[in-house]
């Protein structure tokens, strides 16, 4: 993970996409095997009964991936300040998810270097989660 500096970031910069493969095991392990979760995370039939078409990928797992994706891009001195996401379509386990991002704003506020990144997960060519993540980056000076 390399450090990204505020001065080197431009609006419309794109973050290199990353592919993830969510599984039902990941969904269960993410929350802990002893913790109750939505049955549809582990059971494709339960997901189908909800009208989803298979085991449901937890929104919080996807949000966490997006958070990590942006944090990795920002580098070890970058700080994630906020994450906002809209879950537009349910994702089904065992189908690849592509994470991508683009810088949409940069500004200095109260002495902080703030960068807004628009992030999206894409499954089967369609966006499933859209969000904005605000990170604070160090400056070079």
């Amino acid at each position, binding site marked *: 993970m390399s450090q990204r500096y505020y001065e080197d970031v431009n609006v419309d910069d794109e973050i290199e996409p990353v592919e993830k493969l969510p599984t039902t095991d990941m969904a269960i392990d993410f929350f802990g095997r002893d913790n109750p979760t939505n049955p549809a995370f582990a059971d494709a039939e339960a997901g189908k009964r909800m009208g989803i078409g298979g085991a*449901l990928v937890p929104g919080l797992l996807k949000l966490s991936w997006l958070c*990590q994706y942006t944090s990795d891009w920002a580098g070890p001195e970058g700080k*994630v300040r906020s*994450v906002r996401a809209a879950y537009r379509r349910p994702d089904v386990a065992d189908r690849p998810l592509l994470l991508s991002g683009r810088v949409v704003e940069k500004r200095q506020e109260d002495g902080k270097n703030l960068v807004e990144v628009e992030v999206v997960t894409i499954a089967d060519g369609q966006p499933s989660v859209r969000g904005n993540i605000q990170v604070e980056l160090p400056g070079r000076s």
Partner: protein
Amino acid sequence: MADQQSLITDEHRALVGKKSDPVRVTVKAEDASRMRDVIGDSDARYVDGTGIAPPYTLAAIGGGRAGMAPMILPNAILTQQEWRFSRPFKIGEELDAVSQVIDIRDRLGGRYGYSILAMTSTDYYDLAGEHVAAVLMTVTQFDPKGIQERGDS
């Protein structure tokens, strides 16, 4: 569905804006470690021994938000989420979580047909009363019988 009557009652509406009593929660090392493993996060800031939990540990912290909004329809799915961080989480620290129902409203049309949007929030404070993080989430309640056949699920 145009003549669908709202299932939200005055009793439901009366829940909006009421804050919960603080619920004491702990940032657990095992949660942070397990979630890092699942996510595949190798960020050196959060490895065991640093005492710092990654931001997404918030997904495991809870704090009484679940169950605050009434379940009016049989199924629910998370549709919007916001996390805000005032500072990093420290492993082992105790936080007081204060939750509230922000809004309950009907929605007609869309993927779920008649649905109900329930928005809740939780603010987390350290034991000195300083704000640490906040969660805002919208859950869409729906009846599977109302899902429109769009072939995209």
